[in-house]
């Protein structure tokens, strides 16, 4: 009887963890995912670091806007040099757009010269739903204390035009610059834009 109760209690707790919703200015929910090279990563592996979560789908025209122009890779490289951990996550379900074999993921990433730390595969969408990821791209920033301090769009121009990048306000840069100089993030959320995450 006691054993059954303990098992049920553990299942209940696990469901709470997966149901945990990310909220601004609260601890970012931990997760563990496998990357495109077969290695596991947890968010908690990067305690004490600034972490960026970037939701991706290589075939989405909004993601292509930022990758074909090298905008995303430039951000990845610039801030990685400052010690920021950049994690790219794909929550596309099997058979849906953006869901690729690990070989294809690595090939596309190499072609784009992507500079993320890891491309994490979230095929069942649990982490995407935990974070309320709606679009590709959808960006999140976690500060050194593990608090979620930004959630939203990459910038303020909700279009697929590469030409709109240069005049746009890049919320990710602004937030990371705030954090790196020891300030609070001044713009903590913006409307995310992109293709829907293909859960």
């Amino acid at each position: 009887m006691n054993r059954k109760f303990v098992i049920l209690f553990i299942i209940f707790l696990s469901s709470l963890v997966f149901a945990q919703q990310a909220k601004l200015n609260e601890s970012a929910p931990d997760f563990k995912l496998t990357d495109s090279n077969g290695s596991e990563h947890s968010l908690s592996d990067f305690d004490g670091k600034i972490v960026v979560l970037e939701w991706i789908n290589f075939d989405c025209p909004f993601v292509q806007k930022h990758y074909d122009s090298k905008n995303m890779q430039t951000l990845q490289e610039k801030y990685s040099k400052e010690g920021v951990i950049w994690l790219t996550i794909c929550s596309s379900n099997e058979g849906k757009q953006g869901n690729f074999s690990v070989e294809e993921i690595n090939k596309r990433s190499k072609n784009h010269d992507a500079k993320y730390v890891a491309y994490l595969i979230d095929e069942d969408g649990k982490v995407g739903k935990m974070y309320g990821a709606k679009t590709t791209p959808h960006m999140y920033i976690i500060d050194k204390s593990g608090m979620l301090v930004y959630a939203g769009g990459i910038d303020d121009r909700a279009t697929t035009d590469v030409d709109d990048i240069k005049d746009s306000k890049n919320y990710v840069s602004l937030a990371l610059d705030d954090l790196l100089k020891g300030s609070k993030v001044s713009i903590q959320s913006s409307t995310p834009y992109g293709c829907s995450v293909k859960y």
Partner: protein
Amino acid sequence: MIKTLKTFFFLMIVSTQLNGQQLTAANAKIVVDSYSLEKSRSLPIGILIELEKDWHIYWRNPGDSGMPTSIDFEMPEGVSISEIEWPVPKVFEYEGLASYGYDGQILLIAELNVPESFISNSITVSAKIKSLICRDVCIPFNSNVSEEIKLTNAFSAEEEITKLFSQTRINLPKVKNEIDLSIVPDENNITIVLENLNYDLAKINLIYFLPYENGIFKNTAEQNFKIKNQRIELMIEYDQFKTKDLKEVSGILVFDFYDANRSQKVYEIKKQINTNN
């Protein structure tokens, strides 16, 4: 030389076919309804967008994903155009995400205002359409269209076009000043309180609010409401990452009825949030 020409023509044909395949998912054109310049200097004009099966295009607020459809008109100096009137959008919900838009055929209506000095001329109106169309995948749909409009005293459009304009007008949100409406904010939601409605409230199947501004409210047509006597309370949750605090709420309120026609009544609302509570 002949071989080069053959290769060139082959490549041209292939590229046309590929472009054609992408473009056939949607097409757009400018249409004009019947008018009489003697009666009014306003000409009813519209952008008619036709989508292939399973594709949709977005409302002024696309919802959780997509991109607002935008139309930039160009016309001769002195001629002006009103804001577009947006028909009530459909709600496409899947896996907890909701988008607002249209499928099939959609007509976006505006009014072209022509001063008297143009009475004997024709004018060319152009429109740049920037949008996204989606199915299981999304592609940009950008189209430049133009139409030469001959300005005669009276013009009769084809029956099909006139029918389209009148069906579209029926499906535009109405402004209803006589609803008693107040907005009560809470930490995680707002409640729209409606009183003195002249409907049989027992026949209401669904009520939902679609905001004009994105990023504030959770996007969904499944919104909780309570009906007591002739009073409705509709609760709308804030988005998980609400981008700002609003002083005013604007958007459309949709009532779906259980009646024989499964009719809808849709109202545009604009209301200050009551901060006295």
